[in-house]
């Protein structure tokens, strides 16, 4: 719910608030990843059905009954079963790093797992999950109708790390006192050092020349030093190395 009240932004991050008042960031999975996971599950289900049928054929009529019951169970309860296990994902979903959770960020409950999977019949309508796909594409959190009714969300199980550790640099004090926003910007910039090209990193560092002591030369190195100073590595004698 919280996500709907936020201003429109480009990313699809979904925020769920916990009773402790912290915001959990969930990354909803889109139609493509889910469709691929579904195909894998279809294959797994087909394989299981083959195994059952090989075992059931010698049993005659009783085997046929068994086959029909197993078809029924595979069709409706295969996802329910796997979503209620620890990982909250069918084998196909796990393969693509997906997971089903409640939209409060909690593990999916039995009632919700059953609801979302029984309502697949509606998502399938009129053919090939057309309704489900349409709903998914219309929503920022990619819920299909079963998810809407059950209050569940398909998310990526692992969060991506866009920013990492700060690279080493000799700590240098900035030339003037920095506002909190400026501090945050510099630290965030330093955290991106491994993801940006050196040229771009330097280009950004040039914008912050006014805070680095000294002029010319290695703007990146000096700003990284300021970042280190800001995080608190102020009097660390070990950190004397320079960025290559």
């Amino acid at each position, binding site marked *: 719910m919280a996500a709907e009240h936020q201003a429109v932004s480009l990313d699809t991050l979904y925020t769920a608030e916990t009773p402790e008042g912290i915001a959990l960031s969930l990354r909803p999975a889109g139609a493509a990843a889910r469709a691929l996971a579904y195909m894998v599950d279809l294959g797994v289900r087909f394989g299981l059905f083959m195994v059952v049928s090989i075992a059931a054929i010698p049993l005659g*009529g009783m085997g046929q009954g068994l086959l029909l019951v197993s078809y029924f169970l595979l069709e409706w309860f295969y996802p329910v079963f796997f979503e209620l296990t620890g990982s909250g994902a069918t084998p196909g979903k796990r393969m693509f790093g997906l997971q089903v959770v409640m939209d409060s960020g909690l593990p999916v409950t039995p009632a919700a797992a059953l609801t979302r999977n029984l309502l697949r019949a509606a998502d399938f309508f009129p053919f090939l999950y057309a309704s489900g796909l349409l709903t998914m594409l219309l929503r920022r959190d990619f819920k299909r109708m079963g998810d809407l*009714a059950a*209050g569940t969300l398909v998310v990526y199980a692992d969060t991506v790390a866009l920013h990492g550790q700060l690279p080493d640099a000799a700590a240098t004090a900035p030339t003037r006192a920095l506002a909190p926003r400026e501090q945050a910007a510099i630290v965030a910039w330093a955290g991106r050092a491994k993801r940006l090209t050196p040229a771009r990193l330097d280009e950004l560092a040039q914008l912050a020349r006014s805070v680095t002591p000294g002029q010319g030369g290695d703007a990146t190195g000096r700003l990284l030093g300021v970042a280190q100073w800001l*995080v608190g590595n102020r009097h660390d004698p070990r950190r004397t190395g320079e960025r290559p």
Partner: protein
Amino acid sequence: MTPRLFEAQNGPLWDELEQALDRAEKRPRDKSQDKEKKAAKPAGKPKPLDGARLAELYRRACEHLALSQARAYPIHLTQRLESLTQRAHRLIYRRHDYGVARLRQLVLIDFPQAVRQQRWYLLAATLLFVVPAIAMGLACYFDPGFILHIASAEQAQEFDQMYSGSERALGRTRTASTDWQMFGYYVMHNIGIGFQCFAGGLFLGIGSVFFILFNGVFLGAVAGYLTGRGHVENFWSFVVTHGAFELTAIVLAGAAGLQLGHALLAPGRHTRLQALRRAASEAIVIVYGVIGMLVIAAAIEAFWSSARWVLPEVKYGVGGACWLFVFAYLGWQGRPARVSPSPARSVHAG
């Protein structure tokens, strides 16, 4: 406080939480980290998980996360805290109510109560099912040709053959293994119909209405046609027993679907989405019961209804008892014990 100092002061606490979570989840999240830990602590007997300590660690980590976010600390720090709190949150608020006790509660109390709570949807679904069934039944009874409006001539012939006294008739030549085969068929087919009636509710209830009507019309037509053709005993003694569970369950599934549709059409004071979620969480209890009833119906249909050695009179008797049982169960099971109003309370109320 600088981020580094913050990390140095609280790092041990986060490590402890991380280890507790790893142990509780029993699956290594990050294998490289795990190896490092093993190298650091080769021989450490895992202590049993302390719930109170975990909750405390979790609350502290939440606090640290809030601080870290508010002070715009480096992202790697915030992210570590985020993932720690998320994992702990999932662990602490996980639901544990599975098992036999829950099932007992469901069968004895929750399901019949849910059915009574949704009595208006149930009434609507019943009318949608029964009225066209009776109308079609009468039409086909008085004019057997009328069935051709909804079924092909071949299908009508098949019905005839199934319930006639001939050798190929239903149940005559069936063996035990065929019973099992039919059981499988009924489970797959009938429960599928039940689920359709429920899921159809998502299309503003139109799907549910359609499936209930369709099933009512079809069943009524077949019943009327076969009765008109004189297969009274064969047909009615076959359907009477499992019908008690099967027809009731189909109507209940339709009622659950209508509830979804109503929530979407008239959400009242909630948003449409909230209304749908509430309706679904109530309706799913009925669907649990529907599944159970349809499995019972499939078993009866496969092993009892088709049994030719049972006299039709016995089947009528058992069937009647089943109908009574189903209605009594849905009507009275799980009602709270009636307390006689004590005089003291009535004084307060006055």
